[in-house]
């Protein structure tokens, strides 16, 4: 029997949603600060308006839906999925007011791409965008990568059991510390420490590359935020190609890989347990998949004679691959070059890498290494069962922080999410073809959106059909939240119609 959601459920959802919206309003004060520093008048007005509208919406929800009750699983999941949609709409307001986006839908696309750490862009004339709006684009990626709910949990919500339900709803099912609030705070600690180190490294490199100190550090902080949170926005339209710097590429590769690592693994490395890095199933799987997909990309690029020397082939191929595999989306080639100069084999290698992603409980999207590792182990176990005598007992284990027995429940969960991702990639590709784009380009762009990568082979742009923009927004949203909280919304809608 399906239970119909009651008014009380809606009140609880509204109350916590209101709190998260108020949290979002607080984050909008940071770009306002940037506007004051750089003395940008109209951008400041855009953010004052954004803050006012957010506070108004949050206040109405909190006051009208006021409750003392805690969240149950269904409510927690719905709060999470709705908060991402609401954040997209509210986050898009200052962007749209800047007149750098053709329509409000385009601004919403950019905001969802930011919050979901995808990196596909619809901005026009990015090279003349204000520091204020540019900072907001990068900040929403940082906030989205940490998790909008993680922010609310860290700063605005006092300990309550519903916190864990929202944390899980945001595709973070691993607790680093016994308390979920402390886990959220640890995630922030790691990110802030790396933020300082990464900004310093990028800022100094920028200055050595001939940039002014102010621009070097502004670009440094922006690029760090989107590299560590595997997002892919950049302050200039040429992505990383703007800097013309090998050192800059190396530093961003290191930051992207750090962002693709499980926060739980970061914790163990910080505690001095370096052996975990080599034993962990996720890092091992990551190393293998990077090696395999890189071989495919190199074979494809050699086949197409895309680059004149081995060094240039390695530099372009490896950068795009790591950017795609980690789910970042930085590019050192133009989107049109990917479509025109990279062979179908090289693109296929890149699509496979994008579809896999990084570690669970990291800032990446896609299928993720732990699930892939589990599926490979399950295949290995089944093969052993076939090859060994019938009476023998086959037990497979995997190492992820501790030794874990490979249970059917674990394999089922990994297979279900993997299947959901494959369907999502395929669905987006079908829609792309419906709008007249070729198969490989449609699959590439769809995988990039659903796996929250941001690499583009030229489809994404202000001129693409509105229907495709909406589909990519839905793909980015579902892909980032790993389906469960999105499915819950569908379940509630069905229950509303059929429930008792």
């Amino acid at each position, binding site marked *: 029997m399906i239970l119909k959601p009651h008014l009380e459920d809606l009140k609880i959802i509204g109350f916590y949603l209101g709190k998260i919206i108020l949290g979002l309003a607080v984050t909008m004060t940071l770009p306002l600060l940037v506007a004051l520093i750089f003395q*940008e*008048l*109209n951008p400041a*007005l*855009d953010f*004052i*308006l954004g803050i*006012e*509208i957010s*506070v*108004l919406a949050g*206040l*109405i929800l909190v*006051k*009208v839906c*006021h409750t003392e009750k805690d969240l149950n699983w269904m409510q927690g999941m719905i709060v999470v999925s709705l908060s991402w949609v609401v954040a997209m709409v509210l986050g898009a307001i200052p962007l749209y*007011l800047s007149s750098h986006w053709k329509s409000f839908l385009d601004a919403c696309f950019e905001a969802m791409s930011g919050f979901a750490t995808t990196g596909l862009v619809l901005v026009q*004339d990015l*090279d*003349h*965008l*204000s*520091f204020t709006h540019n900072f907001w684009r990068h900040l929403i990626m940082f906030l989205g990568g940490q998790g909008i709910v993680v922010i609310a949990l860290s700063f605005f919500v006092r300990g309550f059991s519903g916190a864990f339900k929202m944390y899980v709803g945001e595709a973070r099912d691993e607790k680093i510390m016994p308390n979920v609030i402390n886990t959220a705070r640890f995630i922030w600690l790691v990110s802030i420490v790396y933020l300082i180190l990464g900004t310093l490294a990028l800022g100094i490199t920028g200055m050595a*590359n*001939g*940039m*002014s100190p102010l*621009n070097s550090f502004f670009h440094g902080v922006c690029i760090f935020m989107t590299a560590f949170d595997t997002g892919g926005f950049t302050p*200039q*339209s*040429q992505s990383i*190609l*703007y*800097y*013309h710097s*090998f050192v800059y*590429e190396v530093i961003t590769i290191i930051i992207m890989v750090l962002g693709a690592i499980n926060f739980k693994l970061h914790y163990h490395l910080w505690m001095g347990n370096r052996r975990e890095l080599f034993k962990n199933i996720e890092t091992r799987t990551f190393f293998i998949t990077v090696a395999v997909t890189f071989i495919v990309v190199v074979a494809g690029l050699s086949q197409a004679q*895309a*680059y*004149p*020397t081995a*060094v*240039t*082939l390695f*530099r*372009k191929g490896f950068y795009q691959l790591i950017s795609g595999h980690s789910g970042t989306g930085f590019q*050192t*080639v*133009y989107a*049109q*070059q990917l479509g*025109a*100069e990279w062979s179908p084999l090289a693109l296929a290698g890149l699509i496979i890498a994008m579809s896999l992603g990084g570690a669970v409980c990291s800032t990446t999207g896609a299928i993720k290494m732990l699930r892939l590792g589990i599926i490979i182990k399950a295949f290995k176990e089944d093969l052993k069962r076939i090859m060994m005598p019938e009476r023998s007992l086959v037990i497979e284990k995997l190492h992820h922080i501790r030794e874990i027995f490979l249970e059917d429940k674990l394999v089922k969960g990994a297979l279900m999410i993997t299947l959901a991702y494959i369907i999502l990639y395929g669905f987006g590709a079908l829609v792309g073809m419906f709008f007249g784009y070729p198969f490989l380009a449609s699959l590439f762009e769809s995988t990039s959106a659903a796996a929250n990568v941001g690499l583009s082979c030229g489809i994404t742009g202000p001129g693409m059909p509105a229907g495709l923009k909406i589909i990519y927004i839905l793909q980015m949203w579902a892909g980032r939240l790993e389906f469960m909280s999105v499915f819950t919304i569908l379940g509630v809608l069905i229950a509303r119609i059929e429930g008792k």
Partner: protein
Amino acid sequence: MKNILSLIVMVLLTVVFCATAAAQGLSSTALINQAKEYDGKTVTYAGELIGEIMRRGEFAWVNISDGEHSIGVWINAALLKDINFTGNFKTRGDTVEVTGVFYRACPEHGGDLDIHAQGLRKLASGRMVGEKLNSDKLTLIIVLLVALPCIWILTLFKHK
């Protein structure tokens, strides 16, 4: 003899055609989409200088946007002495025309698509862009500022 003459005429026509194409200038879209065709050839490309000039010893990197894409140009820093503005939020950059060798995947610069400039001509000077306060936005801000405490007071009544 006739064959040789027609060959000479064809070569001359090709040279004239290429020179005209170079003189007219190419768009960034044409250079990127037909990169293989222009690879290693001398091209003319015009647009606004954006970002900033990144000096590397005697040379410098500049990025030039024609409104469609930006392309990196590797240039002798001495050729940039007349440049006053580069484009960003507060300024329109100088509009320049560069002539140089186009590389689809430059072996000297890690496979980047770039132009090694041999000459630069300033077509138009850039300028500071004055910011006028948007009065519509300001009015809306004031209206919402009044609405916020009203809503707050109303919700207090609701609780009572």
